[in-house]
């Protein structure tokens, strides 16, 4: 499974692997909704993701906005592969759609 959700005690860990694109978009949305519904803080692990397309970026961005709106945090767990950063930059995002930069 490219997408997994681990419910920890205080934190939800969302792991994304491989290509996260339109084929996984609906799954990613459900996963993020479940994580948001848990009421816990969230971490996204992108270490083994190879691609984030528009659908993934806008979902992560929306989830981030949602989390902040309800006073929780959505953070990156660990480093993000350089090519993903480049892709996000190419997509015209000033910063990564999730993470500390916007807090």
């Amino acid at each position, binding site marked *: 499974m490219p997408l997994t959700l681990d419910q920890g005690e205080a934190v939800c860990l969302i792991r994304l692997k491989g290509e996260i694109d339109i084929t996984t978009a609906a799954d990613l949305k459900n996963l993020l*909704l479940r994580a948001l519904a848990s009421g816990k803080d969230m971490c996204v692990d992108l270490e083994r993701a190879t691609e984030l397309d528009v659908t993934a970026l806008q979902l992560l961005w929306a989830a981030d906005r*949602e989390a902040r709106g309800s006073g929780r945090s959505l953070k990156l767990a660990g480093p993000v592969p350089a090519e993903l950063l480049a892709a996000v930059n190419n997509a015209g995002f000033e910063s990564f759609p999730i993470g500390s930069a916007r807090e």
Partner: protein
Amino acid sequence: MANEQTIDKFKQAFLEEAREILVELESALLALNENPNDTELMGRAFRALHTIKGSGAMFGFDELARFSHNLENAFDEVRNGRLKVTAELINLSLAALDQIKAMLEEASGRGTADSGVSAEILAKLRRLTGKSDTHHAATEAAPSSSPSSPLAASPAAAVGAARDWQIRFSPGSDLLRTGTNPLLLLRELKQMGSLRTKASMAAIPPIGELDPERCYLRWEMVLTTSSSREAISDVFIFVADSCELTIEPVIEPGAAEPALEMPAGAKPEITVAPAAADQALIPDAVAAKPAEKKPPPWGRRASDTPDNASSIRVPAAKLDQFVDLVGELVTMQARLGEIAARHEDAEVATVSEEIERLTTALRESSISIRMLPIRATFERFRRLVHDLARDLHKEVELTMEGADTELDKSVIDELNDPLMHLIRNSMDHGIEPADRRLADGKRPSATIHLSAQHSGASVLIRVADDGGGINAEAVRARAIEKGLAAADAQLSENEIFNFILAPGFSTAKQITDVSGRGVGMDVVRRKVEALRGTIDITSKAGSGTTVTLRLPLTLAIIDGLLVRVGEAHFVLPLATTLECIELTRQDIEKANGKHVAYVRGEIIPYIRLREYFNIKTAQPEREQILVAETEDGHYGFVVDQVLGDHQTVIKNLGRFYRHVELISGATILGNGSVALILDPHRLVREALRSTAGSRSDGRTAARSRAKGAAV
């Protein structure tokens, strides 16, 4: 997820269309070879490459996109007059085209493309264009020629000067579903120069309401590039009708009105908004309802193919199924007609007639759907001729006639191989080297003429060359040597030429790469026979050879004439039938027992089907002659009774009867019985052949032997 499938479907559509584009590219390249200064053709080649690159990248065929990108750049140079069209460039481009083809085949799981070949082609291309790497050199150079250089702002700046463009791009809501990845478009823009991108997330709804497969992002970009507005809008070529896009030059104070320098051919899809003072991002209202119509699977601009704009793409298998069903319907209708006739009920008869009328119309339109002009098949051979001429060091020009002649798709599909073999044969054996031709007082450049023409229910396809012709004596000697003919046989020229069609027959002393193995003509014969066609070869020593293929228009349903002989029913194609006349006992006696009839002063030899098929029922007092037009002239077929016209659904007789040449199939009649479909040409041919020793000019010879001809 269903999306995986959807995307696969788009990929499939892409592969299919890419093949078509390659055909277009090939014809453009070959035409360019003839007219190296035709800018229209340069544009065509460039656009084809651009399309392949762009859509290839969009569907994740990165290798393909990279490869075609380099080629595209070369043609951009050509288009801009910086690179000259040479034979070398054309040949290299053709090789590249083959490589693209191989990549496509690989992508659809057939065969593999050798990446070594790609590298080699690209290396040669670089040498030709004189650039280290056409693409990167250009991109890297652009930003360094500082965006604030005075030239940049000048609208009159020559091509090559970098300037700033403001681009706003709001994808339509369906963009992603059509398999387009907007990020790839941005990446492509980035390759044109230096790009600053700002995404707007304003339209993203709360995550709960968010449709995960819809693009909510909008982009605003400033691109500094030396490329033209046209080149920029070309990036969006596939999404133009499903997005909002504005491309405006960034105006610096004092610069002229931007509209003035809009290229004449600016795309109508691009709305060039007046230079708005506020640089705000596109309003975040759900303004993303740009175009009502849904873009095609992978959006081709409608303006590319105006005449195809309203056409749809249907898998051939569906069409076959449709025609099959119509065939069944026709058969059932015949049954209904039969029942109606038996019941003599006026009401039923009316309905039955009405249904007959409708099925006829339905049948005609279903067949016409499958009819395609043969042009695409013909055009394909330009490349073959070009390549072979180069390899064989011969000068050959391919001319065509009647390329718009329409044929059933299934026939066209099978024609490629036979025509290819015929052309190869002509090029290799038929056409002499230029010096030989000069010595013989001919033009050094030879001609191969492809033509297609309707003839009744058949199509005649000819491959004619003006080469040396077939050496009948050599063929004869070889036939005797191979035991195909007796050493003392009296053979007509026609019969001799027919030996060429025998398997493994070759007079070539040397087997070349191109032909000479004696396989080719056998393939031609088999294919043509499988199509229920015939082959006719004529040749004149010193002035060329013409091979004529006579093929049925369709393999599905024909208009036939139902006839009865004794208890047996036969169908003769209506298209070849000229008239029906009566044949009485007296007429037979008048002809002194010869099988000829006098029709308005003309002598018509005839074949009695009763005798031919050995039907042993009492001969009626009055019989009927169906006069048919055949390749060998007018011939009659004597039957007991002509029952009327019949919509004939052709059914194959199966493998066992494959060798029965006189019969082109069978059909099911209204009462459920089977009638054989006769082929008048073959019947006559066979009859002429069986009159042993007939020497050439069949008709007169056959006339005198008409009796014998009819068994």
